[in-house]
């Protein structure tokens, strides 16, 4: 007798579109997903536990390896947490360098997301265009920190090195170039009918869902929630800059795409203002004790990374190592909604929905 049966399909841990070692156990009926169960932890390195045996400065390189696409924001969050506990005043020049590094990182992170997301949908060329500009940013950050991905650039109290001569001018030249390229990206992909058909109206959720699932970043803003920590709880010197929080109302994959592109534009705006206001001279690191000891107590800080709210909680008993360290890793939280979104979707949509969440497995697994 003819009959159909459900099939159990393992997507990942090795799969071209899971962006790392992420595994999804799917129950499928034909190509329709009945149930999806994410399995994570393949890249778990125990950063938080390791940090308990490390001095605060030693923790910074570990944060580089969490969200390895935008390491500057991770650098910042740990330094910011310690500085908050110790009450350190950061020199002007260091703040500007930090903000510039973070915003460049945000642009490069969104570029990488764009390239790989569109690659998942089957278009091969945009990835290479995205990498062309990302390469320029990586070169800029390389000149600043001496590394292309794992920067280890920020320190408690400031940054490790001052910018090399002419670096700020290079950033100034980069901004109009990037604006020009973003237009090109839109011409290449955004209007494409096939692309629109694949992303419009799929992976939809409401503002309430987004809040209930604790989503943040573009995944939250695509539902119309105007929430960006750079504006709502300004840290560093973000209150000095004039920029918008891009939002969309639809809450589908396409809206996330648009939010990320609009964020690139806003980051460029911030960079432009940074370059204008950049102080001529001054120290790049505050006077901090040789051995950094956070005072007894606890602190939680959160900032806006390209993927959402990244938080850092430190409990200190006054030693040079933290008693307990905890990161709120946005990719991990954003991934929670995935099983709900995938129910009833097809395999093709799975790729688009997963891609639009923008996960970095280093961050998911911690």
């Amino acid at each position, binding site marked *: 007798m003819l009959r159909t049966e459900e099939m159990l399909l393992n997507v990942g841990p090795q799969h071209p*579109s899971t962006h790392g070692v992420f595994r999804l156990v799917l129950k499928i009926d034909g*190509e329709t997903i009945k149930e999806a169960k994410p399995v994570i932890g393949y890249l778990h390195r125990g950063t938080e536990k390791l940090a308990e045996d490390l001095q605060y400065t030693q923790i910074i390189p570990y944060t580089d390896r969490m969200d390895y696409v935008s390491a500057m924001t991770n650098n910042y969050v740990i330094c910011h947490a310690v500085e908050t506990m110790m009450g350190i005043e950061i020199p002007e020049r260091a703040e500007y360098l930090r903000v510039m590094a973070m915003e460049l990182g945000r642009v490069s992170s969104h570029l990488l997301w764009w390239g790989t997301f569109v690659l*998942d949908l089957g*278009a091969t060329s945009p990835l290479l265009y995205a990498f062309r500009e990302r390469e320029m940013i990586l070169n800029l950050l390389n000149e600043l920190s001496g590394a292309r991905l794992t920067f280890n650039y920020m320190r408690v109290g400031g940054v490790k090195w001052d910018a090399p001569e002419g670096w700020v001018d290079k950033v100034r030249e980069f901004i109009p170039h990037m604006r020009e390229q973003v237009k090109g990206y839109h011409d290449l992909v955004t209007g494409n009918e096939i692309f629109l058909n*694949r992303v419009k109206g799929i992976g939809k959720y409401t503002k309430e869902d987004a809040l209930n699932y604790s989503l943040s970043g573009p995944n939250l803003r695509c539902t119309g929630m105007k929430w960006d920590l750079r504006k709502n709880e300004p840290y560093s010197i973000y209150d000095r800059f004039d920029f918008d929080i891009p939002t969309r109302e639809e809450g589908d994959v396409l809206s996330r795409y648009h939010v990320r592109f609009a964020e690139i534009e806003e980051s460029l705006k911030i960079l432009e203002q940074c370059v204008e206001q950049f102080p001529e001279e001054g120290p790049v690191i505050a006077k901090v004790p040789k051995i950094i000891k956070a005072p007894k107590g606890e602190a939680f800080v959160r900032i806006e990374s390209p993927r959402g709210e990244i938080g850092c909680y430190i409990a200190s008993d006054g030693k040079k190592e933290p008693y307990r360290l905890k990161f709120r890793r946005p990719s991990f939280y954003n991934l929670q909604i995935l099983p709900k979104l995938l129910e009833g979707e097809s*395999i093709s949509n799975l790729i688009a929905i997963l891609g639009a969440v923008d996960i970095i497995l280093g961050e998911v697994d911690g």
Partner: protein
Amino acid sequence: MIQDLLHSQPGILNFGIFFVLALVLLLVILGFVTYAILAERKVMGFMQLRYGPNQVGGPWGLLQTVADVLKLLLKEDTIPKLADRPLFILAPVIAFAPSFVVIATIPFTDKLQFADIGVGLLYYIAISGLTTIGVVMAGWSSNNKYALLGGMRAAAQMISYEIPLVMSVLGVILLTGSMNLNEIVAAQENVWYILIQPIGFLVFFIASVAELNRIPFDLPEAENELIAGYFVEYSGFRWAFFMLAEYVYMFAMASLTTVLFLGGWLPIFSFLDFIPGAVWFALKFSLVVFILLWFRSTFPRIKADQLMEFGWKVLLPVALANIFLTAIIKELLSLF
């Protein structure tokens, strides 16, 4: 020339000549496949800010594909333990053999054609449909879930695109009054069918890209979704056979497009007829191939359900309307 041979008395000499000619054609096709792959990588490279192959065989990577094929031949041939062995071994052959068989009917010039049969076009479409069986077989016998999904997608896609493909060429057949490819070319003496049958051409071209399983219709092998689709378990020369079939079909389909819509070996303007027909054919054919390569580096992949919808709800009605329109216009013109 070949026609004369076909009609002559069978003999050792005739057989010998025919055999040598077939061998030459085989080599030409294999040469095309070799350099089509290189061209694809080069063209995509240029479009994607890369160099493409540039190490093996000089700065143009002229021997890159040769080296790749050698590597494939030397690779260990793995067959999954739980695979359906006979089917698994048979599948690449069934997928690949028809791709060569269809080429026999393509008239490359007015003299160079291997089998001038009355229903050449029908023959092409019928034989090329066999490849689907090989693909589904591969998907089923691999005992791999991704392969199965790919095989099923291939079956659905190829069947639903075969129909608009056939329907789209009916307009051409109506105008020519023949299914013979030679006569179709001869009928384009004054004006190419791409100009009289633009709708038919569009439907034909889209359906042919879908038949070729190329982006944006490469669902059966959708790398980012199904890893490699129906041939995910294949390696070595069996895998090479699938690839070979794919590129030979590209050769065949580009030739067919040239014959049906671009006037085959005929020159663009009649005063340019001092240039041999073979050159014209090669030029037009290369243009079609280039467009296929161009597609690949430009478009994202369409979704499975949208693909079916597009085939049945858009292409097929448009193709039918085209037939209707062609018939009416032809009838009206014959009145005056």
